[in-house]
């Protein structure tokens, strides 16, 4: 029996064929009003030269915003920064998360306690995180420099977030610190679905740790890791608060991701049209990544079925 007929039946025995529509309508209307319409308006803005100083004036200028972006070195800088930031986030959170998950996937005293501690950064508000890291990385009194100074590892003038060559890597480290707990716990959950007998069979076959991971563990967790990679990509492209509060995109544009660039153009330079154009580029990248992901995932499932 198909689930389709089952669902229709359920709607009927609940007394109305319109029930699903009554359930869906409020949420759909809500999303249309507060996501759909603003998105359309943002698209419209991207072909105008509307300014924050006069936000209701609409003046159609075609693709001028986009062609200006193509000639703008700052824009290419943001693309580059975004690419490094996203790649760093994905590799860092998944690498560290996988590592931590594998370490926690064994019985030891205090395991659930450790797991609770590790999840904390993910639960904390970005504003608080930005605040405390800025304090810890304070050039003069920050605990990081105070710890590193005696070891001779302090960067020039003790600058981290205000250092053009270190700011991006520092922001990246803080982001990974906040997000790896999430990937670790999700991967840990999927590790627990690896059949124990399979690991034992591999051990009896003489497989070492790496061979066990490669032959038994990885095939089970691979879909989860792939989905996490997609999620980390989309979240990194979207991330605003943490970066904005840590560096505001500086110094000299070294942490100026697309979303930060968009906010700067809109609210600091007052050019809403240009900001919207940057937003469209960001959106397009997210959507393309997702489509690519699902295309690959579908091909993988099909290949799986063929076997």
């Amino acid at each position: 029996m198909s689930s389709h007929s089952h669902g229709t039946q359920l709607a009927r025995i609940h007394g109305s064929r319109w029930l699903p529509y009554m359930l869906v309508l409020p949420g759909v209307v809500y999303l249309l009003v507060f996501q759909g319409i603003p998105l359309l308006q943002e698209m419209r803005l991207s072909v105008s030269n509307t300014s924050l100083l006069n936000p209701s004036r609409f003046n159609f200028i075609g693709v001028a915003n986009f062609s200006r972006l193509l000639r703008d070195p700052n824009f290419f800088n943001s693309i580059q920064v975004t690419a490094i930031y996203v790649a760093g986030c994905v590799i860092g959170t998944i690498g560290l998360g996988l590592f931590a998950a594998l370490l926690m996937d064994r019985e030891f005293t205090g395991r659930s306690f450790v797991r609770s501690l590790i999840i904390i950064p993910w639960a904390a508000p970005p504003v608080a995180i930005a605040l405390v890291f800025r304090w810890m990385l304070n050039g003069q009194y920050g605990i990081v420099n105070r710890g590193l100074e005696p070891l001779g590892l302090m960067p020039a003038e003790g600058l981290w977030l205000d250092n053009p060559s270190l700011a991006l890597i520092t922001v990246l480290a803080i982001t990974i610190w906040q997000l790896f707990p999430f990937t670790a716990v999700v991967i840990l959950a999927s590790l627990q679905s690896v059949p124990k007998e399979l690991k034992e069979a591999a051990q009896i076959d003489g497989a070492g740790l790496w061979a066990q991971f490669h032959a038994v563990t990885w095939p089970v967790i691979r879909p989860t890791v792939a989905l996490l990679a997609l999620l980390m990509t989309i979240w990194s492209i979207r991330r605003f608060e943490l970066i904005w509060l840590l560096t505001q995109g500086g110094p000299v544009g070294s942490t100026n991701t697309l979303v930060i660039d968009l906010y700067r153009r809109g609210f600091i330079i007052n050019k809403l049209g240009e900001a919207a154009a940057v937003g469209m580029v960001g959106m397009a990248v997210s959507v393309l990544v997702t489509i690519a992901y699902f295309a690959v995932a579908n091909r993988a499932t099909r290949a799986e079925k063929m076997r």
Partner: protein
Amino acid sequence: MTRSEFISHAALVIIFVLAGLAIFPFYWMFVTATTSDANMFAASPQLVPSLSQLGIFAQIFEEGAVKTWLANSFIIAAGTTVLTLALAIPLGYAFARFPFWGKAGVGIGLLVTQMLPEAVLVVPLFSIFSPLGLLNSYAGLILANTAFTLPVITWILKNAFDTVPVEIEEAAVLDGCTGINALVRVVLPVIMPSVAASAVIAFFHGWNEYVFALTFITNDTLKPASVGLAGFIGEISTPIQSVMAVGVVYTLPAVALYLLMQRFIVSGMAAGSVKG
């Protein structure tokens, strides 16, 4: 020590180091808040909290602003939670149970909205809210926040509804419960843990949210704690102890509730956002 013993000991050490790194900044926030002025700039930093300085947490509440910020954050977060659940429960239920025209379209819509950066929608939402008088209001922030929590929570709840056998609902129908009644009396109680987890996730989205609050709220009496606290960044007139104390007070409820609900939240997030 054999090789495998060595590996498992090393693993244990690494895992405790990772856990230490994860909580150190929060510990440091607390230590800083309770450091006296004299110790703050001493040659060697104070590394443990001094309990004699705990009065700082009472002090920060004496000033009206902090209380107002936290109260505002609470109202915005609670409103976001209620509105999100009110919309996401029926939506998730319909997605789990019924076929309907346009289901695939709505599903794609829910997926795409998860990709929209808040920063992209700040401007258009600003221009929509402005004529409606929703700027400088709790309602405006609640409406904006819910637009971003709704897709995720809908998926979490859809996956939870999927785990409830249809037979239970059929039994309820035979017992005389139809439509919304079966949902409320029989199905929802079964997935209460997921609903609670969703509520916590929505609450802290509202509690943590910054961009909309920064842009839509100019009236100081309506500022939530995220904006209030961010105002301290780069500002030097407020003592760092007070700033960190506010940070602790602002972080604590989020972390505490997450820890209480972690089992449900993690599985919910994993199922909801990952599978979604």
